[in-house]
Each structure stands twice: as structure tokens, then as C-alpha cells.
């Protein structure tokens, strides 16, 4: 193997292992359930997982900065309801979209303020916000869905096929923008610097607090976008949506190779993580697994992904505290 290829493989080692796992799954499907690869199924998977990818981009930023956000499920529900209420009030769809993203950004800003400005630990802040936001929403809505939306709500009024295309294109464009930005733009590199060593970053002229605040705001905004793209696939908005989203997204990001201790990881890995965990559910159904074993298998995949990654890395014992 030429040296340059070997070096590339070593640099992208974590992403390569996820890719291998994904290929293994796809290989198994090719043998046992080739129906998985029909165009309709692949398209449904793309559309269905586009919002998860968008949320995962935000989570990657947050985790790279050595933080975490477990309140995104509740944020998702609120942004979806916001989009529904705006549409019901007669606001045109582009502004509805903006509204959802801004609502998410505002919620993210609250998290960011508590974590960055007050220096409170992210896991506790977002745990508190997760409960607070969810219960506030339940109290205000009593679980009632936002119904009676204008016809232009579903698919942005574009119709099913163009609407689906729009969702996938928006997700891929967002991904491309952030993937490019993280690597090339100074602000992107600041996230890596803050995550790997905030004090060194500060000495180098980066403001870690500002970086952390911004990542939470982006997280919120991206969750708002994800909520929008999910909501417009339907004709009404469920107020109890998004439960368990944080688990799904964090798992995808970590499986994709981003280190929970911050400073290491790539969006390409996140993309592969979302693809692997997103394909897993339907893959198990195609392979004939009964529904009640799915959760156990998902947990196993998460554990295997993080375990094999560590086993392959030659290095001294490190105790990675949370």
C-alpha cells in the first residue's frame, strides 16, 4: 500500500472503522435482504434521516467544544410547535422556516448563556432545560397537536417529490457548509482549539466562552431546522415529538468517531454515524428481526463501535473522565 494512502487511512482511522461497519451491514443486507437497496427504500431513508443529520451537525460542534446538550429533544418539540403556530397564523412559509430556526437559536442561546457566561456544567444545565422545556410545553398545550394548518405547510407547498428533494438538498448543503467551515474557517478551528485545551486557546487569542456560547446557539438553530424539516413532512404538528432525540444524535456523533472529551472528530464521521444508526432499524426489519430485540441490538452496536475504536488505537491507558 502506498505511503500516502497508509497515512490517510491512519489520519481518518476512526471514520474508516465506522465506514467498515456500515459496509459490513450493507454487505449482510445485500446477501440476505437485497430488497433493502430498492430506490424507494433508499430515498425514504435519506428523507427520514436528513433531520437527524442536521441535528447531529450541531451536536458535533457542541461535543467538539467539550460540552454536551441533552435538551435537544425538548427544543425540537418547541420548534416544531412554533413552526405550526406560525403557519396557522398565516405567516408565509419562508418566514415560518426562519421562525423555527430562530426559536431554536434562542433556546440554544439560553443554554449557551448558562454554560458559557455563568460557567455552569453543560450536562446539568441541559438536563434541567430538557425537563423544564418539555414540562412547560406540556402544560401550555396539554398534548394537543397543532392542527388545521394551511395546505402550503406540507412540503412547503411544493408537493411530495420536490418537497422530499428539498429536504435532502437542504440537509446536504448544511452538511457541506459546516464541514467546509469547521476545517477551513478560523471560527471552525476555534471550536477544535476550545475543545482540546481551552486555556491554550485563550492564550492563543481565542475566546473560549464566546466559542462555547456560539456552538450552543448553532445547536439550537440546527435543531430548529431539523424540527422544521420533520414537521413539513406531515399535515399537523405533534407536540410530544422529539422524545429520545438526544440519545439518537449523541450516539450517532460518538459512533462516528467524535471524542466525548472534545477537540477530536470530523463531520464526515458524523455523517457515517448517522447513516449507520439510521440504517440499522430498517435493516433489522428487513433481516426479519423482531421489534422487541431492536433496542438491545442498537445498544450493542453503540458499545461495539466505541470499543473497537479504542482497541485499535495503540496508546497508553487513559482514563477518560466524562
Amino acid at each position: 500500500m502506498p505511503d500516502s494512502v497508509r497515512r490517510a487511512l491512519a489520519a481518518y482511522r476512526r471514520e474508516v472503522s465506522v465506514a467498515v461497519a456500515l459496509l459490513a451491514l450493507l454487505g449482510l443486507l445485500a446477501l440476505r435482504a437485497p430488497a433493502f437497496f430498492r430506490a424507494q427504500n433508499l430515498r425514504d431513508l435519506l428523507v427520514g434521516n436528513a433531520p437527524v443529520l442536521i441535528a447531529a451537525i450541531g451536536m458535533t460542534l457542541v461535543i467538539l467544544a467539550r460540552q454536551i446538550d441533552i435538551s435537544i429533544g425538548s427544543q425540537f418539540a418547541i420548534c416544531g410547535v412554533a413552526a405550526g403556530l406560525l403557519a396557522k397564523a398565516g405567516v408565509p412559509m419562508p418566514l415560518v422556516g426562519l421562525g423555527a430556526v430562530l426559536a431554536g437559536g434562542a433556546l440554544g442561546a439560553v443554554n449557551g448563556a448558562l454554560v458559557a457566561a455563568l460557567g455552569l456544567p453543560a450536562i446539568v444545565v441541559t438536563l434541567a432545560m430538557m425537563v423544564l422545556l418539555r414540562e412547560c410545553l406540556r402544560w401550555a398545550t396539554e398534548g394537543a397537536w397543532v392542527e388545521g394548518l394551511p395546505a402550503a405547510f406540507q412540503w412547503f407547498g411544493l408537493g411530495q417529490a420536490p418537497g422530499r428533494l428539498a429536504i435532502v438538498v437542504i440537509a446536504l448543503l448544511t452538511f457541506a457548509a459546516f464541514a467546509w467551515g469547521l476545517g477551513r474557517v478560523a471560527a471552525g478551528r476555534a471550536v477544535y482549539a476550545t475543545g482540546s485545551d481551552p486555556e491554550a486557546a485563550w492564550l492563543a487569542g481565542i475566546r473560549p466562552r464566546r466559542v462555547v456560547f456560539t456552538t450552543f446557539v448553532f445547536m439550537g438553530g440546527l435543531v430548529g431546522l431539523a424540527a422544521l424539516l420533520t414537521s413539513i413532512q406531515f399535515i399537523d404538528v405533534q407536540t410530544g415529538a422529539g422524545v429520545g432525540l438526544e440519545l439518537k444524535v449523541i450516539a450517532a456523533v460518538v459512533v462516528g468517531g467524535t471524542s466525548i472529551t472534545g477537540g477530536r472528530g470530523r463531520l464526515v464521521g458524523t455523517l457515517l454515524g448517522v447513516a449507520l444508526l439510521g440504517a440499522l432499524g430498517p435493516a433489522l426489519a428487513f433481516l426479519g428481526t423482531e421489534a422487541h430485540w431492536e433496542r438491545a441490538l442498537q445498544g450493542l452496536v453503540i458499545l461495539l463501535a466505541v470499543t473497537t475504536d479504542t482497541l485499535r488505537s495503540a496508546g497508553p491507558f487513559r482514563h477518560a473522565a466524562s
Partner: protein
Amino acid sequence: MSAPRRLLCLLVLAGLATSCHRGAGKGDGMTVAMMPKNKGNPYFVSCHQGAEKAAAELGVKLLWDGPTETDAAKQNEVVEAWITRGVDVIAVSVENKEAMSTVLRKARQRGIKVVTWDADAEGDARDFFVNQATPEGIAGALLEHTARILGGKGSFAIITASLTAANQNEWIKQIRLQLAAKYPDLKLVDIRPSDDDRKRAFDETQTLLKVHPEVKVVMAIASPAVPGAAEAVKQSGRTDVKVTGLGLPNASRPYLKDGVLDSVVLWNTMDLGYLTIHVANAVGRQSLKPGQPTFTAGRLGALKVAGDNVLLGTPFTFTKENVDNFDF
């Protein structure tokens, strides 16, 4: 003693002193404490609306509380709190029979009357059960519709709530029994969970249609699952597949009108709440005794009583034709 400690003692004493003046306050009207399985579900919200109307009619003080997510342990704790607080009647939609029956018996021992509604506890744990429809009746109605759509022969699949949901599991059990006994040519291919999430129901139905193309009826037996499954069938373009199930009229209306959703089995949830308060009031005043043949509940008129069950009626089917008459 340090200042903070002194303050602490003072506050605790103040608390104890004020608590002596508060008894288990009973007003003129009866206090009925009513609990759904979970407060955030539109199904239970509509039951609440009916209950409020009845409470207003009868001059009953209605306490409405319960877990915000289905949780058998929390239901227990709420009932314990009501026993401590002191109420006249407790009316519960029981998430879990065994878990709740113990605490309900305790309430009865303390002189509190107990009524169950929507989902029952053990027989000796309550005075009356307000039954909207038996699991056998519900399963029967669902299978009747499925058989009709399939023409008596074919494959169907079920989208349920969560895999551990007690009501749904009871219905599925009945469905299996009736399939074996009455519908030998119908085949239940798979059961997938929706975890009460519409998007999940949508995703599971989408996958189901591809993994089992022979399925021609999707039976969605949880209220968020009905619109989720219907939307998935609609978006797949599979006009040969129809959806039936158990859900709420408002969320089902667009799909009923459109033809994807064939029928929705339910009962009038507002009437259920209304009837529950009437029964609770009557039980509290001891004017309703087991064994009497009928019970008159306000605007509902005379309803049948079977032993210690007050029956709302048989399951009702919402269709394209009648769904506009309802709003919940």
C-alpha cells in the same frame, strides 16, 4: 447555635404550627380526584373536558392530575397523595392493574370511594368500573373492519403504542384469540411499536410496506399511530393498502376523507369523562349500588349496569361520513 441554624429551627416550627390549622378541608360539594394514564394525551384531555362539564352540573369539586408520561409508579404516588390529602372519591384510569390495586384497596380502607374508568383495576380494589368498551369488543370491531377491507382473506400488520403498553397488549391478546377462533384466513404478519410518536409510526409503517409487500391492511392501535401510518401509506402511493385502527376523530379526519384511512374505532371520550364523574358522584353519595340494572347519568340518560360495571356502550366507528359530527 449559629444564625443559619436558628433560622432553620424557626422555619420548621412555623411550618408545623401552620400545618395544625389545615385539616383535610372538605367543602359542601363532593371532592372527586380524577387521574388519566397520562395528562398530555389528547384522548385524556377530551375525557377531562367531559368530566369538567359533569362536575359543573353536579357541583362537584374536580381535582385532575396524573403523570405527564405513562408511569405506573407515579400513578401510585399520586393516589397516595390524595389519600393523605383526603378526598371523597378517587377515579383512576389504571396504567397497571397489579401495581395500582394495592394502593386503591388502601384508599377504600380509609373510607375513600374508588371508581376506575377507561382501564380497570382488580375487582376488589374499586367500587365501580366505568367501562367504555371491553377489550373483546374493541378487538372484535378492529378485526371486523380488517376482515371487511381484506374481503375475508389476506395479511395485515399492527402498529402498537409501546411494546409494554398494557391496554394495547390486552387488545392484541384478544385479537390473536379471535383470529384463531373466527378468522382463519386472516394473517397477522408483524407488530411494530410507535412509542406514541407519530414520526416513529410513520417510519415503521414505511419500512413495513417494503419488508412485507403482501400486507394490505395496517391496523394502528394508538392515537398518534393512526395519522402516522396513514401518512406513510399515502406517501408510498400504495393505493392497495388501507389503514384502520383506534384513534381520535380530528387527527383522523383528513385521512378518512381521503380514503387512505378506512375506519377508526373509538367511543365518545367526552361522554366517558362525563359519565365517570356522574358515577363517582353517585358512588360517593351511595346512591349507586352494584346489581341495579340501570344508572341515569345526566344528559346520557339511562345506561346499562352489569354487576359493578357501568357500560358506556359499544365501540363506535368513525367513518368518512360521520367524522364531521365530532370535534376532539
